[in-house]
């Protein structure tokens, strides 16, 4: 016992692309945070009670702060309320939550770090902390608004795909791998389910160790409500059925252990 919902403080807020915002917050969660983990963010609006699980984009342990980069999902949404917050505002959070990426598995290997859409942000802290022989960062965007690209470039070789072909390879991250003739021994990925499904298939066909970060609607974020389950190949020890909890057992899973 000791954990609780915490009143974090907004340090800065910036719009970095259409509907995409970057926020730094001062929070105790920074102390233990790892790449690939997330925080539950809460609105200050009593009509919107559930947490918004948002992945951690950057960790500043010394400064006790975290960066989240998130998408505003529509009008009158909780994420829209987050986007209107200013430095000094209070934002309730719980975190860090989830397991995070096992980045030590990449040591001495050629790695793919792959992000798509709002799955791009958690890859930044991963890229910063990972030590590997070849760090190939492959990011998929909708259009030329390639947010965080400059920051990725300081941390590895960057390859871009865009749906409309306005930057990098036209198509998706798998097209970028093919066009650039890239290869890897280990893969880390976060993004929409169709993208993760394609990466999982590619990894399994080529016998590559692959870690994917999943998302699902959550009510608690701490493993109690059983809302955010994913299907597993083997029976899970906690649920005693073929379900794992994305918030607690994930969000990062070995691709071979889950069915998506």
């Amino acid at each position, binding site marked *: *016992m*000791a*954990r*609780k*919902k915490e009143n974090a403080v907004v340090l800065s807020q910036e719009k970095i692309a259409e509907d995409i915002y970057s926020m730094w917050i001062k929070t105790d969660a920074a102390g233990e945070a790892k790449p690939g983990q997330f925080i539950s963010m*809460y609105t200050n609006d*009593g*009509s*919107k*009670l*559930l*947490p918004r699980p948002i992945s951690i984009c950057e960790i500043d342990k010394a400064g006790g702060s975290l960066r989240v980069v998130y998408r505003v999902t529509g009008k009158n949404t909780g994420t829209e309320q987050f986007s209107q917050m200013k430095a000094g505002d209070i934002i309730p959070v*719980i975190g860090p939550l989830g397991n995070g990426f096992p980045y030590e598995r990449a040591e001495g290997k050629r790695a793919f770090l792959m992000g798509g859409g709002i799955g791009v942000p958690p890859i930044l802290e991963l890229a910063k902390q990972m030590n590997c022989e070849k760090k190939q960062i492959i990011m998929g965007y909708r259009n030329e608004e390639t947010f965080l690209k400059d920051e990725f470039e300081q941390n590895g070789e960057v390859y871009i795909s865009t749906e409309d072909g306005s930057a990098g390879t036209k198509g998706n991250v798998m097209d970028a791998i093919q066009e650039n003739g890239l290869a890897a021994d280990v893969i880390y990925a976060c993004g929409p389910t169709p993208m993760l499904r394609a990466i999982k298939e590619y990894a399994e066909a080529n016998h590559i160790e692959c870690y994917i970060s999943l998302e*699902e*609607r*959550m*009510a*608690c974020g*701490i*493993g*109690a*409500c*059983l*809302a*955010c*389950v*994913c299907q597993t190949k083997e029976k899970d020890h*906690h*649920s*005693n*059925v*073929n*379900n794992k909890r994305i918030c*607690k057992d994930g969000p990062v899973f070995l691709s071979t252990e889950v069915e998506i």
Partner: protein
Amino acid sequence: MDMRVNIAGVEWKNPVTVASGTFGSGAEFADFVDLNRLGAVTTKGVANVPWSGNPTPRVAETYGGMMNAVGLQNPGIDVFCERDIPFLRQYDTKIIVNVCGKSEADYCEVVERLADEDVDMLEINISCPNVKEGGIAFGQDTKAAETITKAVRKYAAQPVIMKLSPNVTSIAEMAKAVEAGGADAVSLINTITGMKIDIHRKSFLLANRTGGVSGPAIHPIAVRMVYEAANAVKVPVIGMGGIASAEDAIEMILAGASAVSVGTANFYNPTVTMEIMDGIEAYMKEQGFETVSDMVGIVR
């Protein structure tokens, strides 16, 4: 001042427990809540065999609350007895095991199995709106509710709490029916069946189409039903439904609840039960109540 309450012969150290399904088996909240402080821990519903639950999405946010159709995913009674009961027994709190089933035989099997286990009370879930068979089928008909209560009572070694659904015409009649069947206590309300549609995707938000609405938005409905049930039966009523603060809990007690369960609020404020216990105590001090039972049902 005395926070203790006696529910069907079982003494709780205070009137606060948690609503089944919102607190796992307790272990999930051990980082947030001192489980020793709770009057009782009510566990996630357990069946005779493991249940996989419903497809996702299983939850959606609603105005001032949420909707769920988890579908009673549970590891089955064997794992529950091996793992969850010993875990909870480390703490100085009462254990209420919530039991779910698809048929009378399912319920009885679990209840019989628990007769030899070190647990304090049983709560029989005849009110889950999210499973097709069983559950709610027993909870919307007075005869069926009385029959299932009688059946489980035969096998039960611990006091039996029947958990009632709000999705009925008369909660008073349902409470009377289970009392007639031998229930030692009743708990209410379970969630209210609802539906939410995504207008952009033009589809249901929950994979199950319908789900149970819970949270602060349903609290006044729960207070009204607790009031009606408490005035209809002699057995104790455990009140729940949208309790998110000490004030909400006190309201429920004044309406007739002998104890309260905190549910959905645990999800978005994991330490809320401790705030509620402190708040009830402060209210009793301020208002000069010596015991919790002095407050029960005094608003008439």
